[in-house]
């Protein structure tokens, strides 16, 4: 379709562009400027050059926060995709029982993060929680995973996976409806085992769905704040200080807008690099943005001929 005037597409894009500029580009620009200043909201700005970045670099603080955030995101994405897919495959069956189980699994997703965090804090409490009682009954020492620097981060990731899995499952269930039965039957007639049918028919056809689930989980995990704020406040021993929480802590608790802004800029660059990497991988695997899977998905079924 050719626009009647060259400015028509821009006019169509204008509302979205305006929103993007006002709520994304300008704030990032402001944060970039603030990162060169020392400011605490109340006293005058003071130019400090790269001092905020140097402070973040000192003692490997920024690297630690980035690695922690990446580790948390990796656990959340891997757990959500794997569990969501497994549950979708298990529950993709007719009947009221399965519908009830599907609804139950999904219900965690509609509960607020605050409620989820409070629920899990109670479950995991080594003193009065379910975990503590269970361990005591088994004759083991009660532990508080949220109080142990080695286990706090994986525990937070577990909570996020628990909450996000229902959503992933629904998306995978929708994706499974797009897998043509004819292909699965043809594969079965060719002697493919259930595992081979999953490996060579279902999985390739679910690739776009998997990418969608992975991307949304990644975005959600990078934005993790509520669970950290409520369950650990970044502790113990900074084991759960993730990017967004660290930014909040610097600006609102430590009175350091400049340091928080420097963190925001680094976080933005990290996300930018990750998004670029993901796009590159996606383009390589699909042969470019124009290469779309055929509606019946037959061009993706390999290894059965």
């Amino acid at each position, binding site marked *: 379709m050719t626009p009647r005037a060259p400015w028509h597409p821009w006019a169509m894009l204008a509302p979205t562009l305006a929103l993007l500029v006002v709520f994304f580009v300008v704030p990032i620009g402001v944060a970039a400027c603030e990162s060169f200043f020392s400011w605490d909201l109340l006293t005058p700005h003071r130019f400090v050059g790269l001092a905020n970045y140097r402070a973040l670099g000192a003692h490997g603080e920024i690297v630690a926060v980035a690695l922690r955030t990446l580790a948390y995101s990796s656990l959340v994405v891997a757990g959500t995709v794997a569990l969501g897919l497994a549950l979708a495959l298990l529950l993709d069956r007719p009947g009221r029982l399965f519908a009830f189980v599907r609804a139950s699994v999904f219900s965690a997703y509609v509960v607020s993060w605050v409620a989820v965090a409070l629920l899990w804090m109670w479950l995991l409490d080594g*003193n009065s929680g379910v975990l503590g009682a269970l361990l*005591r009954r088994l004759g083991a020492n009660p532990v508080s995973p949220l109080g142990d620097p080695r286990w706090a981060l994986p525990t937070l990731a577990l909570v996020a996976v628990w909450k996000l899995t229902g959503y992933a499952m629904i998306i995978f269930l929708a994706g499974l409806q797009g897998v043509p039965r004819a292909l699965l039957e043809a594969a079965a007639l060719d002697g493919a085992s259930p595992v081979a049918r999953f490996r060579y028919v279902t999985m390739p056809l679910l690739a776009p769905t998997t990418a969608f689930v992975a991307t949304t989980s990644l975005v959600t995990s990078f934005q993790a704040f509520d669970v950290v704020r409520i369950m650990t*406040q970044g502790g113990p021993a900074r084991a759960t200080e993730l990017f967004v929480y660290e930014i909040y802590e610097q600006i609102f608790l430590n*009175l350091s807008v400049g340091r928080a802004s420097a963190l925001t800029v680094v976080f933005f660059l990290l996300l930018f690099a990750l998004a670029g990497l993901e796009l590159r991988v996606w383009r390589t695997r699909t042969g470019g943005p124009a290469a779309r899977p055929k509606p019946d998905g037959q061009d993706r079924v390999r290894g059965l001929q």
Partner: protein
Amino acid sequence: MVVTFWYAYGDLVRRVLLDLVDKFNAGQTRVLVKAVHQGDYYEALAKLRTALAAGVAPTLSHVVLEVVPYLARAGVLEPLDGYDGATELAFVPALAQRGSFAGSLLESLVSVPFNRSTPIVFANRDVLEREGASLPRSWEELALLARRLTRRGAGGDVRWGFEVPISWWYWVAMVGQAGGRLVETDGRVSLGGAAGERAIRFWQRLVSERSMRPPPGRDYQAWQSTNESFLQGRVAMMWSSTAHVRYLENNARFPVVAAPLPRDLRASVPTGGTMFVLVRAAPDEEKRAAWEFVRWMCATDQTIAWSTRTGYMPTTRPAVERLIESGWYGSHPNDRVAYDQLADAEPWPWVPELFRLERDVVEPRLEDAVLRGRDAHEVMAEAREEAARPV
């Protein structure tokens, strides 16, 4: 005249405060105080700062002690010297602004003591009597007693000997006890020097001996967890705030006994809690109305009601005298311990960066050192380096 008052309490303390606000509002018609809850101290402070920057701050609030010098330097606090009766309020010296802080830069009166406290030892008297033990008077006695009181049952049950939040306030107490100070008389930020490291090593020792339970969570979550462990009988002895005296006594199923913090080289204890502050940018009429409420809160009846119902220290001398005369301390020996401990109170340095030292420099490193077993000297050298970094 309506005065908006932002406060930061929960549970019992919140109820007591709201009762007093209602009483004030019902007792006169000139001023109506609207108390608005703003979360815990740090959340309330974050909101106050943001509101100050946006020009929508309330007229009256209360802030943690450590942030007062910073807010004063920022020029957002109303000087109170000229207000009616400001110089006549007979505060307990160690709890007034001029007794709570020390330093040549101490400015005019900008804050009035409200809920003031000190750290204190709480112990389960039943456990102590069963073990034939008495409360520790020194660090060494504390370490021995914590080990002695720790019990590990066959079913995995543990009763810990000792628990304390790994946090700034208690570390500052130990720095003082080990003979150090945060800021030297020449203004150099030393963070206690060797005393700061000694305090960390003592905690590391207790954790490695498995006689101290480091509570999960940070800030007030860790405090709450410590109180819960104590009330559930899972810890025999803890350090907490005098603010919790009443709460612990009312909720424990065993007699609670309090004692002063143990000494190392000397006895020392910081004061804590918050101070009333008026926002300078507020309209004059509202500030005068807010001051009327502050003065009313500092009157003997209210000071006593506040202190006896919560456990916070009575902040004025007439209130203390009346409590002594009425025999309150005789029937509430735990409150007496808290008050007597003020004799060892160490004033805070009046330096604007005090709050940054707490939040950004020391607090995040304490758990790092204690729970991960990092070298105390290395951690504190890093903290001093961070403290010296221009903000």
